[in-house]
């Protein structure tokens, strides 16, 4: 890790991060502050859709900016003409990426808890658990998706390829998950998308919250522990893609 580079990376990426984090906080606040909104309601109408798409924008844009764009533009030459190792560059960028996503959902989770407390007048331990686990789930999902974008960003010399591949995969996974959610005949798409590994129903069941299906009817009781294994799968995807990306970036030819 290099402090100077980290500072520089934060400076260059904080703008988009701030806007998207504030948008999420605003949405949660607006939904929950008005009155008693059960966590499961927010989960169905908000968490299942919006944060994933908002963070996808951040993941795709930032992923490209962290490595590929700097190689493409040639600015990377200046960091690498100083005694900073390529591995250090790669790991510093990875640290920023993961850290910024963690902060994004930590803020979203805290905002939800505070807003719930203010809107409903009280909040139970189970509700706090559900909110924190849902946001942890979003973080894990984005750990995996950002890892994919990071990997794409570390192997391509041109921004356009990094965005096409990284963004293409992330976009496709969100799209497949959405199609499966809204149309039963596309249910089979689920198995191709890591987005479905973010299992809100299981988290809600685990936290003793009521679970609704998409149609609003009470669904059959989901497995309250299934999400744990799915978190692990997301974590593995994240760790593997980040490690692979860093290694490949340190070893490949750079046209600088």
């Amino acid at each position, binding site marked *: 890790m*290099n402090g*100077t*580079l980290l500072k*520089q990376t934060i*400076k*260059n990426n904080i703008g988009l991060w701030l806007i998207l984090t504030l948008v999420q906080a605003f949405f949660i606040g607006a939904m929950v502050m008005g009155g008693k909104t059960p966590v499961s309601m927010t989960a169905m109408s908000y968490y299942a859709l919006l944060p994933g798409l908002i963070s996808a924008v951040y993941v795709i844009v930032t992923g490209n900016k962290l490595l590929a764009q700097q190689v493409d*533009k*040639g*600015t990377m*030459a*200046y*960091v*690498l*003409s*100083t*005694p*900073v*190792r*390529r591995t*250090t560059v790669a790991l510093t960028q990875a640290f920023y990426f993961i850290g910024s996503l963690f902060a994004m959902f930590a803020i979203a989770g805290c905002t939800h808890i505070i807003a719930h407390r203010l809107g409903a007048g009280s909040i139970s331990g189970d509700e706090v658990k559900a909110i924190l686990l849902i946001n942890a789930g979003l973080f894990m999902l984005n750990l995996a998706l950002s890892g994919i974008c990071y990997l794409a960003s570390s192997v391509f010399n041109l921004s356009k390829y990094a965005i096409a591949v990284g963004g293409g995969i992330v976009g496709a996974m969100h799209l497949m998950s959405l199609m499966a959610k809204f149309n039963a005949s596309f249910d089979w798409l689920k198995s191709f998308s890591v987005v479905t590994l973010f299992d809100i129903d299981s988290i809600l069941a685990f936290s003793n919250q009521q679970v609704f299906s998409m149609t609003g009817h009470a669904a059959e009781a989901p497995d309250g522990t299934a999400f744990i294994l799915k978190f692990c799968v997301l974590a593995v995807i994240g760790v593997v893609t980040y490690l692979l990306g860093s290694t490949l970036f340190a*070893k*490949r*030819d*750079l*046209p*600088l």
Partner: protein
Amino acid sequence: MNNVIEIKGLTKDYGLGRGLFDINLSVREGEVFGLVGINGAGKTTMIRHLMGFLHSDSGKCSVMGMDCWSKSAEIKNAVGYIPGEISFPDVKSGIDFFKLQAEYMGMSGISRANELAERFNLDATARLKRMSKGMKQKSAIVNAFMSDSKVLLFDEGTTGLDPLMQKVFTDLVREEKLRGKTVFMSSHMFDELESVCDRVAFLKEGRIIDIIELSKIRGNERIKEYKIEFVNAEDYTSFLGHSFSVKRRQDEYRQVTINIPDDDINELFRVLSAFKVKYITQKPQTLETYFLEKYQRDAVTNTEVSQ
């Protein structure tokens, strides 16, 4: 003296005859080494190997005894670099850029950068995005020199500079050489290399076809070229009657260009003393003429071989 830069059997094949093929050369400490060749000859590829940005297919290169690939970060403590394409990090002004780079280098301040900026007449407080090509190039030059690195690698370091600033640059390179710096620079401008380099390698299609000591070209060649103009036509014709090796005749101007070995120079003066000479001038051999002749000769040899 020690070899600061060492390249052994360096090969990087990009296919279709592009890349570098079996490059061998070494640059001594305190030497200014030039690399010349047309676009696509492999100059940038060679410098990128020295910077550890590219991994060779085979062969090795090292700077100060450290392998350019495996020790690329360590080497940077001793290397200043001007990339072929200037694109600055996302900071506001030139000063901010120097400060950022100084921080990466672990330098305490940017006083030397300020001195250099003044020397190049560069307003480093200007916004990087608004800078002209020349200003950007100057900023990149200042950055390369400011850390007082022992080895300097320039990939066409003066592109975009006006002739006045090119002079400032070459003066600076000469000063740094006197301070013991080793310089490895590519260029397609012969006169720039000619004025500062000790040796120049000529790169063609990824291969070094010649390495020339510039002291051998700088007026030290044994056969020199003289151009003489005569006042009247009789003297002109009469002079041509002597057995000098005539390179070019311009009858309408009564001008003749001859090649003559240093040993015969007194003979020339003896002959000329009988004539009314308008002027005599020696045409120095330049790096450019040297290589152009060499290039043409190679081209001829190649055609002969292929026939």
